[in-house]
């Protein structure tokens, strides 16, 4: 009986350990890897959509209003991915970091900017 209890306890412990590792380690790491670029892309897209929306709303042009609605679907996607990342256990700070990184990705490196000012020959 004790032997059986010991075996049962060990099995349960093992299952819970695997689930815990899965939830706390495997899931966040996998989601972090899978969403790394898509999330940053969506940050940029949603940022762009909100920016366009701001100006289009001020124009109050019926021709543009529907196009703005469609573009804002990018923000829906962004929100959805963000929620998935949070549910998966990724910390909000990490998401903020990716948001900042997304903006950096679309900035020019100083090397590229200064390259055109160098003498090629004299």
């Amino acid at each position: 009986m004790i032997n059986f209890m010991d075996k049962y306890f060990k099995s349960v412990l093992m299952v819970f350990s695997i689930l815990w590792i899965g939830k706390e380690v495997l899931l966040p790491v996998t989601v972090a890897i899978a969403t790394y670029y898509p999330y940053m892309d969506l940050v940029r897209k949603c940022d762009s959509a909100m920016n366009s929306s701001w100006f289009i709303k001020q124009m109050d042009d019926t021709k543009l209003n529907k196009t703005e609605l469609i573009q804002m679907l990018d923000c829906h996607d962004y929100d959805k991915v963000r929620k998935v990342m949070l549910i998966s256990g990724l910390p909000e700070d990490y998401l903020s970091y990716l948001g900042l990184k997304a903006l950096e990705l679309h900035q020019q490196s100083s090397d590229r900017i200064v390259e055109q000012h160098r003498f090629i020959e004299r």
Partner: protein
Amino acid sequence: MMKSFKYLIFIISFFTSSASFSLSLDQKLARVIQIYDIKNTNCRESNQSFDRALIAAGKEIFRTKILSGGNDVSCSTCHIESKNLIDGLKVSVGIGGTEEGAARLLSGGTIVPRNSFTFVGRASNQFKAYFWGGKIQLNDNGIIISPFGESVDKKFDSLLSVASIMPILARDEFLGKVKFFNESDNIRDINDKFYQSRYEAASTLFKRKLKSDGDFVKIKDLLLEGGINLDEFSMADFGNALSAFISDEFSCKESSWNRYLAGDTVALSEQQKRGGILFFGKARCAGCHAGELFSDFDYHSIASPQGLVGISPLGQDLGRANITNHPKDRYKFRTPPLLDVINTGPYGHSGQFESLKDVVMHHFNPILIFEKYEWKSELEKIQYGKILGQRDSILTFYDLHSESEVDDLIEFLKSL
């Protein structure tokens, strides 16, 4: 143990599958269809009204050259059936021209200084304005506005009927050249400053020709079979016959987009679906290319280069302002419908865009075309600033970021 592991894999793959991250392309297009209230209407059921008894007569009138002053031009000269109902030229060549394609441009005929258009979708009851400047249009009260005035439109079956006879009354397209001797009946009798007078004169001339047993006997017989009373003949009968033929023969063409709207989700490729979302979204195309025919039938300028010829003084083309005389309408043209657009180049009122990519990119960046453009004249080069100044402000709101998005957009256009 294995079972727990499988569950874990399932949960992880659910969270990491792309479907769970964002709306699928089909889901987004479903939103597009809902927001724009796009319907897959039966083309034949949404045609303008026409008389089926006149189809045969319309076919003959469309193809015969005897309506032109020099017996050398028919409707099918510039709307070639084997070329998707266009002539494939930047601008058309009317009377005096021979042959097809580039050879026609060199044949010495009279230039018709605008790009010819296809007939796909032209018979739709959604069509509100014909020709680049919209000289035939339906106003908000359902009244046809045309150069003929209100007194002569009583017998027309439709807006398309009115538009159909315009070329027959145009000097460069059908009438012929004014000469001191050996002038054709058409130019002598019909040419007048006012289209209303041209209409009456043409009705009288063609009634006389139809009643004489000459070249017109075939058309006469077909019109009689169609129930036309020749004693009461007017140009509206020609218009009604032409529009019947165009409606029946050319107007309806099922596209991949139509099939997609009908529920065939594989009718569009993934790239076309991405392009469709851009078209109705951040590329802002649907702002003007709206509705079933992809045109708002309003007038805009994308600052197309003019080329060497135009219908306004000095070879320029003032576009809509030729009709309204209003300064705000200068260099604006009716938004062209986009049905079958991939097969109907070159593009623009003056045909200056060789490829679909050229014209699409010109919406986003009017400078690019000039990397390869050769100014056709000193006048064109000097005048272009005025055209650029009229460029529609709606074009400043697109939000594309990469050439691959432009390629997606073009793929979608191919599905229309």
